[in-house]
């Protein structure tokens, strides 16, 4: 059964289109990931789905309720963890949950029971009477996830759930998300610009860029669409090598980006000597090679023509020449 459906959902601000006619659906019980760089339209989409923003065009429904006409019903069935913390730091953890529970009209017994349950789930039961302003970033995030679960929503929206957290806390939060998806059968809609997060958590992924959905499928299918292996190489003349390699039938796809070439092929490690031979015949020197299983970054690159990592970080200065090396790394899945 489909629990979220959207049709041509659009949001424009003064002529700028943040979300551009997106149509998709999410199945009940799934962990669905919206993957895209900052400013791709992920948060705007979440805000429209959670009735915080009115769409400029199009419609959507959650658990069978229309986000425009049945706003109260939609709100009853969803939980949200916002990108920016949305806790009252002058209240304790328990008080924040109590506030939430009463706003959602839970009965006193359910309130007590649920507060205990969700605090145990996120390991904050010992800190429940501490003011939230004394919580660490990771604890705040966990409390917010707990709060999102208080009223047992059908769909939990997580907007960049691990943004700005350290590696260890991220791991822990991933585990919580997986666990609650399993234990409480909550459908999870998350946005992220971390590939590894989407890879680890999501059953189904939609890649969004410039407000449009570029592709939507399961993680495996998306990776396979890029090729069995991904070869990335730097060389002295990208354009010439690109043109020459395009003629090779064993290459399933080839994308130039940022003075590098990314090639999708079967049995990548066997193709490396071949590429070197070809390069030598056209007088191109290869300075580095990397072979690996496709990651979601490659998927993103394939569908948008840009690398997500390059957008997230500042591109290193191009004046520095890297020493020639031959790197071969196979990631076991």
């Amino acid at each position, binding site marked *: 059964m489909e629990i979220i459906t959207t049709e041509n959902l659009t949001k424009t601000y003064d002529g700028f289109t943040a979300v551009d006619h997106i149509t998709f659906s999410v199945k009940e019980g799934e962990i669905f990931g919206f993957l895209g760089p900052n400013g791709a339209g992920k948060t705007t989409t979440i805000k429209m789905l*959670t*009735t*915080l*923003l*009115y769409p400029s065009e199009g419609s959507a429904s959650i658990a069978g309720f229309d986000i425009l006409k049945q706003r*109260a*019903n939609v*709100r*009853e069935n*969803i939980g*949200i963890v*916002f990108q*920016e*913390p*949305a*806790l*009252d*730091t*002058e*209240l304790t953890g328990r*008080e924040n949950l*109590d*506030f*939430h529970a*009463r*706003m*959602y*009209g839970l009965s006193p017994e359910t309130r007590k029971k649920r507060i205990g349950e969700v605090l145990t789930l996120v390991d904050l039961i010992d800190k429940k009477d501490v003011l939230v302003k004394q919580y660490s970033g990771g604890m705040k995030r966990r409390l917010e996830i707990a*709060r999102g679960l208080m009223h047992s929503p059908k769909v939990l929206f997580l907007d960049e759930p691990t943004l700005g957290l350290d590696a260890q806390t991220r791991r822990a939060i991933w585990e919580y998300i997986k666990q609650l998806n399993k234990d409480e059968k909550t459908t999870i809609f998350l946005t992220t610009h971390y590939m590894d997060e989407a890879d680890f958590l999501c059953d189904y992924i939609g890649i969004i860029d410039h407000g449009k959905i570029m592709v939507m499928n399961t993680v495996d299918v998306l990776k396979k669409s890029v090729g069995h292996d991904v070869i990335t190489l730097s060389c002295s003349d990208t354009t010439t090598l690109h043109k020459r390699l395009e003629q090779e039938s064993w290459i399933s796809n080839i994308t130039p980006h940022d003075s590098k070439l990314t090639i999708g092929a079967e049995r990548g490690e066997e193709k490396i000597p071949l590429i070197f031979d070809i390069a030598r015949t056209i007088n191109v020197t290869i300075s580095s090679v990397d072979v690996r299983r496709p990651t979601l970054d490659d998927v993103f690159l394939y569908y948008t023509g840009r690398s997500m990592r390059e957008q997230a970080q500042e591109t290193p200065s191009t004046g520095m020449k890297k020493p020639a090396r031959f790197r071969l790394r196979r990631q076991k899945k």
Partner: protein
Amino acid sequence: MNQKDFQAIYMLWLRQMKRFLRAKSRVLTTIVQPLFFLFILGFGFNIAVFPEMEGSYINFLAPGIIAMAILFSSMFTGVSVLWDKQSGFLQEVLVAPVSRLSIVIGRTLGGATIALFQGILIMIIAIALGVPTVSPASLLLTLVIMVLLSFTAVGFGLIVASKMHDFEGFESVMSLILMPLLFLSSMFYPVNTFLPGWLQILSYCNPLFYMVDGLRGSFTGVNYVLPPLIDLGIILVLCIVIMGLGTYFFNKSES
């Protein structure tokens, strides 16, 4: 409105109480600041002679100080929506399955409770200082006017908050709008025919004038311009209009 909305109203009220009581410095400031005005201005101007003023200057000043304390406290409640907007907590409130009206009511009641607590405190101190009162019934009327004044100020605060995105603008609202309104409200000096004509006209155009005048009429029973019940009528209309506008603007603002 259903049971859920009432529970939400209660919770929003409770949150404000907790926050108020935990912010020790705020409790102290809100209690002490009006007392500075009452004591320093009150005793400082006590030797001055104003035409047609009955009784001492403190008797004249006390109702104005009550109005000021309620006004500042309630405005602060309205504008503190901005705080919630900046801290992100407003989103949590807005996605809850309760009507926007109950969110406004909850916040208003919370603000009014705090403001009323301060107003009553000053009232008691004023009575202890010898400010005369009329009758229990008129004290009750004073309380009603205090509540309406508080609601109006929260509504005004909500309008201000919906038009601003940070606190930069709040300072200018305070000094460019609130201060002149206070000065023109007959809080510090009596408004009568001895004043220049333009100053009288400006005073009568000031909504706050009727609130201070109503408080003075009902609380001390002297030095007022209009009968307290007429002031009450005017205040009631003002309150409904401003609260309506405040709710409208709060509803319209997307987070």
